[in-house]
C-alpha cells in the first residue's frame, strides 16, 4: 500500500465525517418540523459507517495482510417513535391536542456533532502524519 493510497483512506474518513455532520445539521434544522412530504413529522437521520467492500475482498484474497481502502457511510432513518407533545394551538395538532414532533434529542445531536468534528480532525491528523512520512522518505540518503 503506497503512501498516496493511505491518503485516500483518510479522504474517505473525511468524506464520511462530513456526511455525518451534514445529517446532524439537517436534524437540528428540522427539530421542529412537523410536516414532511412523506407525511408525519420529520424523522431523524443517522449515518452508519461500514468498511468499503474492497477491504473485505482484499482481505479474503490476501489473509493476514493489511489491505485498506477506507470507510463508506450510508444514511439510515431512525425509526424511534415521534415525540408526542400536548399543544392544542398547533396547526398540526390531532383531535386530542397532541402534536407529533420529530424524534430528535438536541443533546444527542450536539454530542454527535462534537464527535464528528473531532473524528474529522483525527483524520486530518493522520493525513498530515502520512504526508510528513512521505516527505521524510524523500530525504533518505541526503546529507
Amino acid at each position, binding site marked *: 500500500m503506497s503512501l*498516496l493510497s493511505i491518503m485516500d483512506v483518510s*479522504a474517505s474518513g473525511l*468524506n464520511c465525517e462530513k456526511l455525518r455532520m451534514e445529517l446532524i445539521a439537517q436534524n437540528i434544522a428540522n427539530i421542529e418540523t412537523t410536516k414532511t412530504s412523506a407525511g408525519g413529522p420529520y424523522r431523524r437521520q443517522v449515518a452508519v459507517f461500514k468498511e468499503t467492500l474492497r477491504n473485505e475482498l482484499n482481505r479474503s484474497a490476501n489473509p493476514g495482510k493489511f489491505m485498506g481502502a477506507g470507510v463508506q457511510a450510508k444514511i439510515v432513518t431512525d425509526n424511534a417513535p415521534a415525540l408526542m407533545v400536548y399543544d392544542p394551538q398547533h396547526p398540526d395538532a390531532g383531535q386530542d391536542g397532541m402534536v407529533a414532533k420529530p424524534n430528535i434529542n438536541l443533546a444527542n445531536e450536539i454530542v454527535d456533532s462534537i464527535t464528528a468534528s473531532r473524528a474529522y480532525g483525527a483524520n486530518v491528523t493522520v*493525513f498530515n502524519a502520512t504526508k510528513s512520512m512521505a516527505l521524510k522518505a*524523500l530525504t533518505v540518503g541526503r546529507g
Partner: protein
Amino acid sequence: MNISSLNSKLYAANNIFTTSRDSQNDLKSASASKNFGQILSQQLEEVNSLQKDADRLTEDFLVGEPVEIHQMLIAMEKADLALRQTVEIRNKMLEAYKQITNMQI
C-alpha cells in the same frame, strides 16, 4: 588500471542496471520489454495526471461545483508530493550522470 578490468567493471555495472530494470518490470508486470525511458515517461504521466486532478478540483471548487474542501486539498497535496518525488528522482539521475561524465579514463 588497465582498460580490460575497467571494461569488466562497466559490464558489471550494466548488469546491475539491467537487473534493477527487470525488477521494476516485475513490479509493473505489464510488458517484459520496457526500457528505463518508458518507465520514466509512464511515471511522469502519472505525476501529470495528479497535477491535472488537482487543477480540475481547484477550478471546480472555485466555480462552485460540489467539491469538498478536503478533496481539493488532498488532491493538491498528492500532486505536490508526486512533484517533489519527481524532482528528487531527477536530482539522483543528474548526480549519477555527472559522476559518469566526470569519470577519467
